[in-house]
């Protein structure tokens, strides 16, 4: 049980800090939330800078162009970039955190050569086409159909909640290739170029007024069979590989950003004047801030445990589900506290909506946090996973 960084880990961190210290001041101002062209340029530009400096694919193995860092170095990377205010992974999320790692484990050499270098250089935006209108929590019941026609799959159906679908170049797409088989055994994982004829993308407006995700319609879209990852009808297993990454390190920057936000909130509380005192003088507000900090510190410690497990076993431990479940609730409490402090000010959204991912506008954040217990497996599903897979309670069905 040792949370100290080794000499190599410290050397890695110091070198990274130096580089960030040089590069961050040259970046300029981040783009507006709704200017997607500028956002793409910003996110991909940052990825390219990481690539040129040797920090792209930090945790990808070096034979695939990554840096081959240990899970601890990955954690240090995320900690330092967030702490120093570097851009968030943004629309590179799916490529860097799901699709890339999945291709590394499951794809053919040709598929890897075609996509992995481009992902690392920030030349490909990916999206995740898993959920459907009738297949959300029960993802395995998905019905987007793929019929084999020579060396193509002909795909017809609909995906929904596809984050960054309207800017993506490729999609990790789950389709049904066997209608008769039990639902988990008729699914196939495909790489789908988003510019194929027959694909229509319609952005959906979120509660925050932004358009982060889309509906994607497929009308007889011809996808080459060579785009299949894994065997036909083995896509559910491949998707499970994708999920293990999603629940592993995906929330580290989030948590650290949230801790920065709490510090800002404490500052704000000390400044807000009401009836001759400050919000900070309110015992309940002050104690809730202390309480939230205790919980975030604990979640950060839990993250270090999950990362240490990954370092020993090669896979993130079950702590990921616990983290996600707990974090969503704590973050909602923090957003509510901010609003108690802001009082009437809680009616006003900052101009442009603010950066709801990692800080800034607390009003936008109160909306954003609603998605934390829904996206990437709802809290109810996380509780099922913990109850059944960790505690061994009987399955529902």
């Amino acid at each position, binding site marked *: 049980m040792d949370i100290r960084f*080794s000499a190599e880990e410290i050397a890695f961190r110091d070198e990274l800090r130096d580089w960030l210290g040089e590069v961050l001041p040259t970046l300029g101002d981040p783009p507006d939330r709704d200017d997607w062209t500028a956002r793409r340029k910003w996110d991909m530009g940052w990825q390219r800078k990481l690539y040129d400096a040797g920090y792209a694919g930090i945790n990808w193995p070096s034979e695939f162009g990554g840096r081959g860092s240990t899970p601890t170095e990955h954690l240090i990377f995320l900690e330092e970039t967030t702490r120093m205010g570097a851009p968030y992974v943004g629309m590179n999320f799916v490529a860097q955190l799901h699709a890339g790692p999945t291709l590394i484990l499951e794809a053919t050499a040709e598929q890897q050569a075609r996509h992995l270098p481009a992902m690392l250089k920030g030349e490909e935006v990916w999206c995740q086409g898993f959920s459907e209108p009738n297949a959300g929590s029960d993802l395995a019941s998905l019905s987007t159909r793929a019929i084999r026609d020579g060396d193509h799959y002909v795909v017809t159906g609909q995906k929904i909640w596809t984050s960054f679908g309207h800017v993506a170049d490729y999609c990790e797409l789950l389709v049904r290739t066997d209608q008769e088989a039990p639902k988990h055994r008729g699914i196939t994982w495909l790489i789908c170029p988003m510019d194929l004829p027959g694909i229509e993308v319609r952005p959906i407006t979120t509660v925050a007024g932004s358009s982060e995700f889309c509906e994607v319609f497929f009308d007889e879209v011809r996808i080459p069979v060579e785009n299949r990852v894994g065997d036909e009808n083995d896509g559910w297993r491949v998707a499970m590989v994708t999920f293990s990454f999603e629940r592993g390190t995906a929330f580290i920057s989030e948590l650290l950003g949230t801790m920065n936000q709490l510090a800002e909130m404490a500052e704000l509380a000390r400044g807000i004047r009401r009836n001759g005192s400050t919000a900070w003088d309110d015992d309940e507000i002050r104690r809730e801030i202390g309480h939230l900090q205790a919980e975030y510190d604990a979640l950060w410690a839990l993250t270090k445990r999950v990362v240490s497990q990954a370092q020993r076993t090669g896979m993130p431990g079950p702590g990921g589900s616990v983290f996600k*479940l707990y974090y969503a609730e704590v973050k909602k409490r923090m957003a509510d506290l901010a609003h108690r402090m802001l009082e009437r000010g809680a009616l006003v959204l900052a101009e442009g909506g603010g950066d709801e991912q990692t800080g800034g506008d607390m009003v936008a954040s109160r909306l954003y946090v609603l998605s934390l217990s829904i996206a990437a497996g709802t809290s109810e599903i996380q*509780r099922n996973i913990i109850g059944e897979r960790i505690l061994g309670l009987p399955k529902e069905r």
Partner: protein
Amino acid sequence: MDFELSDDQVALCDGIRDLCQGRFDIDTVRGLADCGGVDRQLWSELVDTGVFSLVVPEEDGGVGLGWAEAGLVFEQLGRALVPGPLVGTLLAAGVVDDSVVGLVERTDGSALVEYPDVIDALLVLDGDGVWRVDAAELSFEPAQSVDPLTPVGRVAELPQGDEVGGCYGWVNRAVFLCSALQVGLATGARELAVAYAQERQQFGKPIGQFQAVKHKCADMYSREEVARAALYYASCVLDAPELADEDRAVSGARILAAEAADHNGKDCVQVHGGMGFTWEIDAHLYLKRAWALTPCFGSLDEHAERIAAMV
């Protein structure tokens, strides 16, 4: 960084768990309520295993391990509901010669002292230091404790006692050890609830198949794991204070462990239905011990304040 348990630490946990299962099975533990919480023979087995001398350096006759190990051991003791003045006796090891040592904070007026009938000495903590009072100097008015495994007696006024040296950072260490016991209690309560949820049938199926029960168990596990992470982090900071602020780490563990033990105790009662409200089922023992351990060395509000001042 490797925040997982080392092989030695895993072996230590296993050893203490075996000791608890072998010597402190639940019937024995319940029986201890009839002899003031401590049986000298069993206590000496804890002493001989090194439970109390864990952090005493080897050259002074101790085991020479750190707070990480002390936390792991106390977690196992909490999980098994082992009673007795565990925290006081560990802190007192190497400082005074008594073998069953109580610990209390000096307050104005009367004081409640735990395990009044079995302690050899009481150590009193106040702003000026730590003071030893011989048990013979104390006269107790009887008081009924909420927790049968934490008997208490009331002392009208604590004697001044004799100052003892070498008591660096005792408040944080006492708080830390109470937190470790509570993480163990949270685990014990969760394990009991999950076992019952698997075995008890209603509507023709195990109640653990109902989501309302399953999800409660999942929440118990989550609380426990988050509290455990906070506890392990605090233990690392106690062992290497240059790493981070000790007060913040300990107060954080304190809050999460106390809440996890309290909530898991209540949920364990609930999962047991009517049985949970009986003396016979152990659920109440976890909850009551959790309650007994919380109002020690600062309220949870005070710990939250201590952290808030650092945000």
